[in-house]
């Protein structure tokens, strides 16, 4: 099934649809080609009545570019005339002029609206219609060959076509190339040439009644052979359908006549068509056979036309490389048209067959009497076409009038689309003009100055989209070749003028050509990618719509859409709020982005969390110690201890009456030792306690020395041997005996191992301590004579300040002592711990601290250090006792006060 691709969304739609089923855009342009059934125009079809109300929506050129959202500006209807197609304006002008100059014989060619050789200057090419030329040129493959051949003939005949007519009428008129080609036919019956259809000739809309035909259109009837106006439906010469391209070109003389003798009734659009057809035929020889297309592609009647006409041939439609044949198979009426002169360019329309607008169907072209032969050959429907040469006329329809007076073929002979075409086709108009006029549906009639409200017949033209398979009939080569923007409304005569059409400025003028020229610069990939039909592309308002020169301020601020269905339009709202152009959304990294500050926060939080499980070190309370108290206590104690030494003679403390701890056992024991007895003395105290122990041990050692005992010194402390030496040298009472080492005493030194050493020494003293501190052999010396075991000693005296040392001596050497008594001289601090050993009988004597020493000295009546330290010791102890007592009392009082104050605070 044939499909039509929507110009807006680009989606395929069935061919029978007029409106896109996806986006509701019109699929078939309102061209005078086919009715809403979108069927190709067939000869003999009844023309479809089109309302002209839609033309009322066009806006004048003076208003400038219409911006979206703007309120419509009320304008004088006279200004709207610019919005009308040129051919229509020309018709109006002819109407006005008809009153003053009723007799205005327009040459056949000149009257033809599509006469490319018309004297009137080519109207300004509306930019929005320029695309028609290009589209038509480009998409020649979509145009039937027979139709494209007609265009070629027209181009060959007409050097330049009037594109303005095409711009005015837009796609409403559809392809106007064939119309322009019709202008080239020598026959004045422009109706025949203009209504050359691929199919059999159908009833011409002109046959419906001349009464309905406006006067201006009547004037288009081919009366003169020389002036054969190609009956253009409403478009310029450039908008002639492709089938018309095969028509034989109107001879140049006929074109010249048409141009030189402009008829009053010849619409401007027809003139434009002529001009455009002339442009489009540039490069194509005038004498080119009308049908360059293969004859096998053209219908017979069209081929006849080609054969008959030997003159100028309509220029090939843009985009179509097919030139119709010489018209051998063309009907007579068409041949007559070719003889007359350049055929107006077929109105470039969309690929679909151009729809015959209503306005074109309602009037009959001014009849120009064609040549005798032409008149005979021109069908009635074509002969009824009014040839109205004029400056304002533009080829707006696909009609080309043949010789003047050519009858418009009957309705049954012409296809419906052709029957609706206007008969005012100026012969000789360039196909470019027609293509430019009718090629782009978006080229609004705003290019023209507003001439007032549109007539009903002009507004009521509905756009019929040609079949998708068919190439646009009136698209020039330029436009066909040029890449066309997408989504163009292919309405030659839209019932409802789209917004884009209303925004366009009517006066494009020289910009149209520039725009046309610029269009080829567009990348061809756009059109190919969109696969739009050529007639849609021709109507694309890419550059022709935008009046960049006139409205620079607007363009600066507005974005011109370059893609999509709204390509070429300015002021298009962005696709999204705040978005001017769609773009690829930014790619956001999946990875979490953490800043340095957040990293610090994370680390801090982690430390806090982990610190919860970690036990915190308890800070010890540091009590602030009052140093004054310590200084005071120190001072008092120093004073108490120092004063007796300042007064040594004074005896403040009476002698003690107390008994020693052992109750005189030590004294008795030592008194019972024989003279020169070997005594083992162990110096196992620290230097810190040397003052107390030396003071305490001095009376005993003195007593032993007085007995001449042989003393053996040993120590389980590393400092013991040195202390022992010092004791015998510096201790009061001891040093008086002047014992010498190696003679009276021997110092065995340090026994290592603690209890093990004691045990070893106790077991084998000679093995444990073989030498003295000086390195001499100890067991041969006099003090150790006869001593081999521990039990050989007469007594063992342990000097220690530590209870453990004493206990070790007792425990390790007790079993090896035998009968040898062990006496301990200890510090007062170790007395409680050693007392049990004395009480148990393991110790035979115990002297503890200064008091026992004092007592021992008193019993022995040899005052020593104990007697010397007794006053200091007593005074110091008394001061200490008083300080402690004071402290106790004071602390008790403070605590009691705080205790009393607590209930008050709780209360």
């Amino acid at each position, binding site marked *: 099934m044939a499909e039509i691709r929507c110009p807006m969304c680009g989606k395929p739609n069935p061919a029978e649809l007029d409106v896109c089923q996806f986006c509701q855009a019109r699929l078939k342009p309102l061209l005078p080609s086919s009715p809403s059934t979108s069927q190709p125009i067939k000869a003999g079809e009844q023309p479809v009545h089109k309302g002209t109300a839609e033309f009322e929506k066009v806006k004048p050129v003076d208003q400038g570019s219409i911006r979206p959202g703007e309120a419509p500006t009320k304008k004088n209807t006279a200004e709207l005339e610019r919005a009308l197609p040129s051919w229509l304006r020309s018709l109006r002008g002819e109407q006005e002029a008809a009153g003053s100059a009723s007799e205005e014989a327009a040459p056949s060619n000149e009257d033809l609206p599509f006469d490319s050789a018309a004297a009137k200057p080519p109207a300004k090419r509306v930019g929005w219609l320029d695309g028609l030329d290009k589209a038509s040129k480009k998409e020649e493959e979509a145009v039937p060959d027979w139709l494209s051949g007609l265009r070629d003939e027209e181009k060959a005949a007409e050097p330049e076509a009037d594109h303005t007519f095409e711009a005015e009428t837009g796609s409403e008129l559809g392809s106007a190339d064939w119309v322009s080609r019709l202008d080239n036919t020598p026959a004045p019956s422009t109706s025949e040439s203009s209504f050359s259809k691929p199919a059999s000739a159908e009833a011409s809309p002109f046959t419906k009644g001349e009464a309905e035909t406006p006067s201006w259109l009547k004037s288009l009837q081919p009366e003169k052979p020389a002036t054969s106006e190609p009956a253009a439906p409403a478009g310029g010469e450039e908008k002639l359908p492709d089938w018309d391209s095969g028509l034989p070109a109107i001879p140049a003389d006929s074109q010249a006549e048409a141009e030189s003798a402009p008829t009053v009734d010849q619409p401007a659009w027809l003139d434009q068509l002529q001009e455009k057809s002339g442009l489009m035929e540039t490069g194509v020889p005038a004498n080119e056979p009308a049908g360059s297309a293969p004859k096998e592609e053209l219908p017979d009647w069209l081929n006849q036309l080609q054969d008959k006409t030997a003159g100028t041939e309509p220029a090939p439609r843009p985009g179509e490389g097919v030139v119709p044949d010489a018209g051998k198979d063309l009907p007579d009426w068409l041949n007559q048209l070719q003889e007359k002169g350049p055929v107006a360019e077929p109105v470039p329309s969309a690929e679909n067959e151009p729809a015959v607008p209503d306005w074109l169907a309602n009037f009959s072209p001014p009849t120009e009497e064609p040549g005798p032969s032409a008149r005979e050959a021109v069908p009635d429907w074509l002969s009824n076409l009014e040839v109205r040469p004029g400056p304002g006329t533009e080829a707006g329809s696909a009609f080309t009038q043949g010789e003047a007076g050519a009858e418009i073929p009957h309705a049954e002979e012409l296809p419906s689309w052709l029957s609706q075409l206007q008969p005012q086709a100026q012969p000789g108009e360039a196909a470019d003009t027609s293509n430019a006029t009718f090629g782009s549906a978006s080229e609004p009639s705003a290019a023209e100055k507003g001439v007032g409200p549109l007539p009903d017949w002009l507004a009521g033209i509905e756009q019929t989209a040609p079949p998708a398979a068919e190439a646009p009939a009136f698209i020039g080569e330029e436009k066909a070749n040029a890449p066309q923007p997408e989504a163009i409304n292919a309405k030659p005569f839209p019932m409802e003028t789209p917004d884009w059409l209303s925004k366009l400025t009517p006066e494009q003028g020289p910009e149209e050509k520039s725009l046309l020229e610029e269009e080829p610069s567009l990348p061809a990939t756009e059109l190919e990618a969109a696969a739009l039909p050529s007639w849609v592309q021709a109507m694309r308002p890419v550059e022709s719509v935008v009046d960049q020169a006139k409205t620079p301020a607007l363009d600066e601020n507005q974005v011109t859409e370059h893609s999509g269905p709204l390509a070429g339009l300015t002021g298009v709202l962005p696709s999204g709020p705040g978005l001017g152009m769609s773009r690829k959304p930014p790619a956001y990294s999946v990875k979490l982005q953490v800043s340095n500050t957040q990293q610090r926060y994370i680390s801090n939080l982690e430390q806090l969390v982990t610190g919860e499980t970690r036990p915190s070190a308890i800070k010890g309370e540091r009590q602030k110690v009052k140093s004054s108290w310590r200084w005071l206590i120190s001072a008092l104690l120093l004073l108490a201890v120092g004063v007796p030494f300042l007064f040594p003679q004074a005896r403040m403390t009476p002698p003690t009456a*107390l008994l020693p701890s052992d109750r005189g056992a030590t004294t008795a024991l030592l008194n019972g030792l024989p003279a020169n007895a070997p005594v083992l003395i162990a110096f196992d105290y620290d230097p810190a306690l040397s003052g107390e122990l030396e003071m305490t041990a001095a009376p005993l050692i003195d007593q032993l020395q007085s007995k001449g005992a042989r003393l053996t010194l040993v120590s389980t402390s590393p400092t013991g041997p040195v202390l022992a030496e010092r004791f015998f040298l510096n201790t009061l009472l001891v040093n008086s005996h002047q014992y010498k080492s190696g003679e009276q005493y021997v110092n065995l030194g340090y026994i290592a*191992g603690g209890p093990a050493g004691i045990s070893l020494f106790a*077991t084998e003293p000679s093995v444990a301590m073989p030498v003295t501190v*000086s390195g001499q052999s100890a067991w041969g010396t006099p003090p150790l004579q006869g001593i081999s075991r521990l039990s050989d000693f007469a007594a063992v005296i342990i000097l220690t300040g530590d209870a453990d040392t004493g206990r070790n001596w007792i425990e390790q050497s007790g079993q090896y002592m035998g009968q040898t008594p062990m006496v301990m001289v200890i510090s007062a601090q170790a007395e409680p711990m050693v007392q049990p050993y004395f009480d148990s009988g393991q110790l035979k004597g115990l002297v503890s601290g200064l008091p026992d020493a004092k007592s021992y000295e008193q019993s022995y009546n040899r005052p020593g250090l104990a007697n010397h330290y007794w006053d200091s010791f007593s005074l110091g102890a008394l001061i200490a006792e008083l300080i*402690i007592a004071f402290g106790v009392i004071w602390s008790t009082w403070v605590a009691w006060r705080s205790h009393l104050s607590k209930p008050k605070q709780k209360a």
Partner: protein
Amino acid sequence: MNLKGLFATISRSWLTAIAIAFGVLALIGYFFTSTILTGLRLLLLDLAVILAGFAVFVGVANLLNVHSKKIKRHDKSASYSTLLIIVLIVTFLLGLVARFFPAVNPLFNGAFNYIQLPVEASLMAILAVTLTYAAVRLLRRRFNWLSVVFLVTALLIIFGTVSLPFLGEVPGLSGLVRPLLSQVFAASGARGILLGVGLGTLAMGLRVLFGADRPYGGK
């Protein structure tokens, strides 16, 4: 099981065996009189004494190592460590030299007599001031019956030990209270402590002999 673990296991087992063996031998020597056992015990004791003496030397070396590291790390007490090492070396050298050169003995003795001994004696004297001050503040920090009893006992002992200037002993306090406190209450407490120590020592020895405790290393 790797080689290192195997060696560790064997070593621990040997160590335990050796310790038990020699402990049993020493114990048997106490119960049985035998020349061999006595000689073996003496041998072990002699070896122990030698090891103990060498352990002192090792201790001194370790002391040097620790303080040397402090000096290398530039610790806060690095200066004291330096002084300690210097004095240690000097004293060690003096002792070595004094053995072979008696003329150096006064020097070596002077270092002890004029440095070490006064320092230690002074520390002991400061202790008297510290204890007095602590006794004064004891009730301020911990006002309870124990503290009161402690302080009262201390006062009684002191009063009973010394004679008051110009007064002499306090009657009943020096002859009755002090002996009662020191020789009855204190001694009884001491006896209990000593019995506990003795029993604990016995248990410790039996545990070593049985291999329950391995203070020499291993698990």
